[in-house]
């Protein structure tokens, strides 16, 4: 426990706590820019969340404790996941052999409760949403594992920190094809898991078309605030994973590396924003095909590295 690790850990937790909503803000700003608008300020998501936390709550009469547990578990799981994933070139606070499996399954736990909470309201729309969430994330699961296999093979280690920190330009030079395929696959998963366009449109107003947003339709006030924050955190965590693959630069100087990490996260946000503004939402029937496509990309990358 040297004090550099302590410092890194503190920064890690601090970033995980503070930064996520900013990404949403950046995305919003980017989209506004593309639409030729000024758009909401970068910190709008923070305002929203704080506002929501102050609002009163409406509970549906049909709901039970499961409905209340939903947001909490979602937040908790994402938070623990945030502790497992390394930010930038730094080890994550918690890392042990096999933590990537825990990482993957934590999201399953969150999903289980989010979907149950949605179904607890007895509303057909939220049922619809959770049914879609269930199917799509189930299809996204194998992709993540193929990615993990590839990374574990490339790094020769079994914990997220090592396998992600290990990715460098050197690795890119040797296994460029595999990593490229992987980046493609993981980007799709990133968008799908966070219900971004082209999978889902967070700010449409037609419930019939939504996935994630429709699931939380009946949550209000603080609960909704927690959900928003959890969603942002999830984006942040998965984003961190993706950034490691796509933009693996490191200087070796810890403080510079933190800076680099923040920048690359913002880059990612911008990219997502661009994608969202140039693409239209896919028809639901197409989504499974796209996800399977991503799986195939990841599978190929795995085959490339283990052959």
């Amino acid at each position, binding site marked *: 426990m040297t004090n550099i690790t302590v410092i890194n850990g503190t920064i890690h937790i601090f970033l995980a706590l503070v930064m996520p909503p900013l990404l949403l803000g950046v995305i919003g700003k980017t989209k506004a820019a593309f639409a030729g608008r000024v758009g909401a300020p970068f910190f709008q998501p923070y305002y929203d969340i704080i506002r929501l*936390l*102050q609002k*009163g*709550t*409406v*509970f*549906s*009469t*049909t*709901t*039970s*404790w*499961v409905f209340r547990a939903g947001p*909490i*578990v979602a*937040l*908790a799981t994402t938070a*623990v996941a945030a502790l497992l994933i390394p930010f930038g070139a730094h080890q994550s606070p*918690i890392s*042990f*052999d*096999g*933590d990537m*499996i825990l990482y993957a*399954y*934590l999201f*399953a*736990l969150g999903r*289980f409760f989010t*979907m*149950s909470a949605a*179904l*607890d*309201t*007895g*509303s057909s729309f939220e*049922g619809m949403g*959770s*049914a*879609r969430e*269930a199917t799509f994330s*189930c299809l996204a*699961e*194998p992709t993540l*594992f193929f990615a*993990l*296999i590839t990374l*574990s*093979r490339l790094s020769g280690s*079994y914990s997220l920190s090592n396998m992600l920190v290990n990715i460098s330009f050197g690795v890119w030079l040797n296994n460029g094809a595999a990593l490229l395929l992987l980046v493609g696959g993981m980007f799709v998963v990133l968008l799908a898991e966070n219900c971004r366009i082209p999978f889902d449109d967070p700010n449409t107003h037609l*419930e019939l078309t939504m996935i994630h947003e429709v699931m939380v*339709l*009946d949550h209000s*006030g*603080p609960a909704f605030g*927690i959900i928003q924050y959890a969603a942002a955190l999830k984006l942040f965590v998965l984003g961190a994973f993706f950034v490691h693959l796509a933009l693996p630069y490191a200087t070796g100087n810890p403080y510079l590396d933190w800076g680099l990490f923040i920048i690359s996260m913002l880059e990612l946000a911008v990219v997502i924003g661009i994608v969202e503004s140039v693409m239209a939402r896919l028809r639901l029937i197409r989504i*499974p095909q796209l996800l399977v496509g991503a*799986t195939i990309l990841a*599978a190929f990358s795995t085959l490339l590295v*283990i052959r």
Partner: protein
Amino acid sequence: MYSALQGAFDPALVALVAALVLGCAGIPGLFLRKPGSGQILSALVTIPASLAGVAASLLLLFSHTTATYVLQWNLPFGPCDLVIDPLSAFFLLPVFLVSAAGSLFALGYWPAAEHHTTERGLTFFYGLLSSSMAILLMARNGVFFIMVWEIMALSAYFLLVTEHEREDVRRAGIVYLIATHVGTAALFVYFSLLAAQTGSFLLPAAGSFSALSPFASLIALSAFIGFGAKAGIMPMHIWLPSAHANAPSHVSALMSGVMLKMGLYGIFRTLTYFYDPPLLWGTVLTVAGITSALFGIAFAVAQRDMKRLLACSSIENVGIITTGIGVALIGVSSHNTTLVYLGLAGALLHILNHSFFKPLLFLGSGVVIHATGTREMNLMGGLGKGMPRVALLFMIGSVAICGIPPLNGFVSEFLLYLGLFRQLNADSLVYLVLLAPLLALVGGLAVIAFTKLYSSVFLGTPRSSAAVHPHEAGLTMLVPMAFFALLCLLIGVAPQLGLHLVSPAMTSFYPELASTGLAAEYGVIMGWLSVSGGLLLAAAALAALLWMWRLGKSGVTSAPTWGCGYQRGTARVQYGASSFSELAVSVFNGIMRQRISRPKLAGLFPGAAHCCEAPTETILERIIVPLFTIAGVSFAFLRRLQHGQMHLYMLYIFVTLFIFMLWAH
């Protein structure tokens, strides 16, 4: 029959006596006049006996000793040994635990007052089933093994057909009986071949013969068929869904939680004989396992009957376990100790875990069915308000069976995953790692299946009159469930315990493991798992506190669910079980093959129409039943030989005579 078993007072003896007591527990009830007294008596006898049995098994497990008794029987099949080695002791744990829980549960679930005609038989055969399984684990004489095995199978049959007035129960019974008998036939071959090899009906000692010896692969094959049929490995699983769905719930718990494991035990026991299993065997087991897991859970997603869903998920779990065994076996044949360790640990721990959460879920479904009088999930809903405790326990079971942290199901799957990942940097058989994404897919489907089960039963609003007035279960039903839920939590947050529990069985299966430091290494990782489990709970608590605080500040109002402006919403509008899984089913329809009858809507104002989606037993209904019909038809013409014309019967005699005369000269 059996002269007294000589031997000092020791755990093995305790376990043996406990097993026998279990068997006798139901007998007094057959003769007692007062209805129900037998049931209570058997519970009173069974529970202490089982607890003693559990204690004894634990002692045996950790003392790493092997206790042997010789049964003085006078059947012409050589000496009959009863042996408890760590492997048997390990398998004894679920037997005793689940039997005890079930016999307590039965008091509330199957009260003699309501079921005076069936209760006696049920109690008797329940005891017989438990005890036969316990003794099976000790039997080391092939013929004795088969006898106990068949007693087990038959008593399970009689338990299954308790409500034989119902047509589907009868059909399930026949399918089960035929399947198990075919399995027993395979075991006849198995033990005969073993006897042909060793010259006696005693089961061969561990590592006593080579897989290259003649018939070795035939022995393995017959074992795979015979034991696999009982374990429910695809494609020998055909009997399983209907059987588990139609038995009384505590019987389903025993069958699914323990009886399936007897098949797995047989496979384990068989594998101990050979010191050089070829790679092929491991591969076959792995492929069969992962197929069962994938198809099993896929079928589960499609089900509408909640017990059928649970049964299908048993197929999945057995599949995962079998995959673990297969992986371990591959490790054995490729001398990769780590793979052996992780595969075995995953398989054995999952056996234990599955015997915790599956009974929990079956008992829970029993309560639900008891309350609603239906197994059809589409007719339920909103039960969580009527029976909050059951709902909570059922939630724990569901999370655990999905293999999600922080519960026990995750631990065993974690070990298996780790084994597969470890293979990445092994020098050979790297492709094994490709099982991981498949397992992940299985996990995803499991989440779908159990969200569907849990939410359509306990959440939302009642979808039919059946589910309107649920009543909370009595203590006799809640205590067993709570007990299993606690076990799930315990192993979930303290995985080291689970690892500790399986290690003796592992070393007795593969002695080389004792010398390695793997146990310590993975003990540490298990420690990390419990740390993160703790963190998870802490984070949840924090978030909850934050929320509470905010709720305190800002007011709470309650209103009906937001119906998007649609005012006439009824309970039927909500997403039901079938509608929830419809999307997933449509994606995986290649496997599930739903039978969908959609009405033709014609004209401007079509009348009322009815659409029905029914999951099919693909293998049974599309392959096996047609095969039987074909066979029946193709042999039917031979029946004309019995045409009733006597002068032709005479001719048969003379023709036979003639043929034999020709043959003789």
